[in-house]
């Protein structure tokens, strides 16, 4: 029961985006199950995974939404950017086209998330160095130009996977600490869950005390 879904202080919502086949689902699986799923089925629409991590002694629950990269799903997946605290933008280091599409993904991410959303660029399949089609340096430069955090990772070996998810969380937590992320904004992608059973003044409390919402319930439907 110790690792159950209890006693965490925050929930951070993440979204994973990028072209089809870059390994988004594998990254999520590697992060939540610590296993590489070589024959991962195509994602239909959106899938979901969670894991509790610790940042600065605080337990944080990550709620991760893995999207289908295919164009035909964009209309659906676009609705999931709303309220994401972190966006992991993935390309495949062995397929340049997936790197070339990053700017379109970045545009979506910028337009559909809030300005504080932490965007983390991941060059996946780092294990396939022989087939490399995108250099570390150019991706690094792209990340710098766009103010993104960046790492090359491998869902297969697990290298840097943990780091990518954790660094994103640290950055979000830092944003909370220095006040640039407003917890009371319902769409911040962060919910504060004070321990001890007393629903205190957190993000969720804002949701709950909306008497306005309640009165509206009676008239608007």
């Amino acid at each position, binding site marked *: 029961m110790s690792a159950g879904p209890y006693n965490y202080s925050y929930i951070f919502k993440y979204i994973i985006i990028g072209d089809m086949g870059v390994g988004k689902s594998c990254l999520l699986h590697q992060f939540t199950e610590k296993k590489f799923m070589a024959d991962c089925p195509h994602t239909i629409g959106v899938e979901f995974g969670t894991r509790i991590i610790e940042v600065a002694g605080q337990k944080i629950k990550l709620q991760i939404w893995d999207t289908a990269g295919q164009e*035909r799903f964009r*209309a659906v997946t676009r*609705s999931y950017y709303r309220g994401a605290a972190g966006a992991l933008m993935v390309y495949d280091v062995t397929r340049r086209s997936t790197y070339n599409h990053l700017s379109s993904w970045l545009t979506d991410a910028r337009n559909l998330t809030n300005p504080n959303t932490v965007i983390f660029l991941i060059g996946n399949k780092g294990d396939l160095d022989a087939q490399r089609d995108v250099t570390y340096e150019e991706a690094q430069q792209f990340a710098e130009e766009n103010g993104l955090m960046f790492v090359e990772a491998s869902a297969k070996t697990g290298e840097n996977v943990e780091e990518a998810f954790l660094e994103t969380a640290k950055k979000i937590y830092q944003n909370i600490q220095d006040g640039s992320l407003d917890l009371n904004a*319902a769409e911040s992608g962060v919910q504060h869950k004070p321990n001890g059973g007393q629903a205190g003044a957190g993000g969720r409390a804002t949701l709950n005390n909306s008497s306005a919402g*309640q009165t509206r*319930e009676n008239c608007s439907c």
Partner: protein
Amino acid sequence: MVENKAGANGHLESQLSKDGQTTNPLSRKINKILETRIENDKAAVEALSELSLFFPENSMKARRNLRGQIEQRSVSINQEFVAALKLVKDAVDAIYDDVKIINSQCTEMKAKLQAAKAETKHLTEQTAKLHKQRTTLAMQQQVAAACARAFLLTPAEVALLQSSSPRIGPEFFAALDKTLAIKNNTKHLLQTGEQTTALEVLSHVSEVREAGVGALYRWLLQQARVSDVLTAALPTAMASLEDRPQLFRLVVEEWVVVRRGALSRNFLHSLTHLSPTHSPIELGAHSPTRYVGDMLAWLHQALAGEREVMGALFGGCKSLDVSAETSSSLASIAESVCRPLKTRIETMIVSGEPTRKRLPQDSSASPHRPHVSKKPVMLYKMRGLLQFYSNTIEQLTGAGLLVCALDELQQLCQKMFLAALQTQVEESCELLHAIPPSLAPSPTVTSLLTLLSDIITATTLSTLQHHDHAAEVVDLVVDPLLTALNAAVSGGGGAAVEAGVVEANVYLLNCCHLLHSTVSLLQTSNTPQKLQQIQGVTESAVSVLCEQQTAAVLMSLALLPMLGDLSAATAAGGVVGDTPLACRPYTSSSAVQHFLAKLDEFLSCPDAYQLPSMRHVVSAQHRQQCLHRCCTAVLHHYTALHTLVHTVPAAGYTAPHKLMPKTPDMIRALMVL
């Protein structure tokens, strides 16, 4: 000194006398005396030296007195001895007394010891007895403790379970588990015959357990109210209520009620609440698909969260199907948004028209471009969305009212979509009578086909089922369109009369061409069939055009008047009636020469003979096809004529080689057939 000497002498004498008495007493005495070495006889020496002390002078008187003196001395010595001995006796007497005392004391001690010994023995016995008692007691204690463990709750446990608001945690669960264990143990006790005790224990334990269960139940109800924050004790608490189905149900119901409230509140909040970073979902209402998609995505995410909450609640239960239970309670929670969601989506389906605002301007500005509403596309996309989310949410909640509602909405959407599409197609088809001067597909047709491919390519979210619908959609558009086009062109309607057969068919052919290229890209299940259908219409149009084209060419080659006689002569061996072919006016040598001259012109520039409207045929292939058929017909007639001229003397042509020097094969080569 003298006395001593005398004494010694006396002693000596007595001795001497003794010796003399044995043998010759005298001689022996004398001998003895003679042999005597006084200096060697220590006693004698001593006696003599003693004697010298009190016998200083050897006189008569002294000798007479000596005896007395010696006796006197002996007496005094004895007296001295007696005195001395008395001292010794006294001392011995004192010792005796002491020993006597010691003895008595020893006796006493011995007695005491005896007594003590007797006493000690008693104590030892007592100790042994006590020891034995102790062992028994220890055993009894163990038994009692075991009993207590098996049948009794500690006061602390009782207090914990009976407290009005106990701390729900490991201790509480341990105590509660113990009550259950005791109840089970009591059953054994009942079997062994300890009825009274057993019943007493049972009633006490049951009472305490009841209190504990009650407290747990109240705690779980209260936890529902703060169910945003899950406590670690929750699954165990819930599992502890598993053997109390009614309470268990009540708790689940309470949780469902609270979560329902939270869900619908949060839903309405996210629809309307302004945050610094995000507009409320309702602001997206100008784009119905975006609005509906955002709502459903929000719901999907919220339900995933709710599933975690309910999953945690049931997480510790052992006797129920956790996943099924989670799904079904999630279905009830999801019901809470059915109504607000349904009304909103229905509104979007029924009235949603993404481009309505710009409609009047558009249609008034260009009457030739009838506005084709995007509504069917929107509805089709919406239907796909609804289907996608119905599947997605069903994975979370199982079948339930929300899923049903989504399915109903999907059906409504489908109905509205088909209706909108049908209306659109009908309206468009009515506009097809007029054939545009360009003979290109009218804007009505192009926009209808654009709509069709928009719809089909919007078929994006799911895979298989959509293709069936897509086929239906293709039917819905293509069939009426083909019918209307056919009717407009060949049904003897006004359009064909006004425009002429060639123009009408060119138009039909061009429309079919567009249709064909559109439909072939759609790749729906009925695509081959549709293409065949279109191909059929295309071919009939082509054959009409070929006929027209051929007729026109035959006419301009002056071949047309020949044909009747030509076929008659072919059948009758070169004569028409009784007249040889060469003597018939339209097939005379000069007429044939005229034809051949025209044919040369035609062969040098066949395109010049094309009907003017044929230039409007979009497809070069169709144009080519018409020319080809036309040439084939010309060649056919040429061959017939050539045969008659060259091989049938009855036809009456002189100098056939001069008249028709080119063989049909040569003509065919020139025609590039």
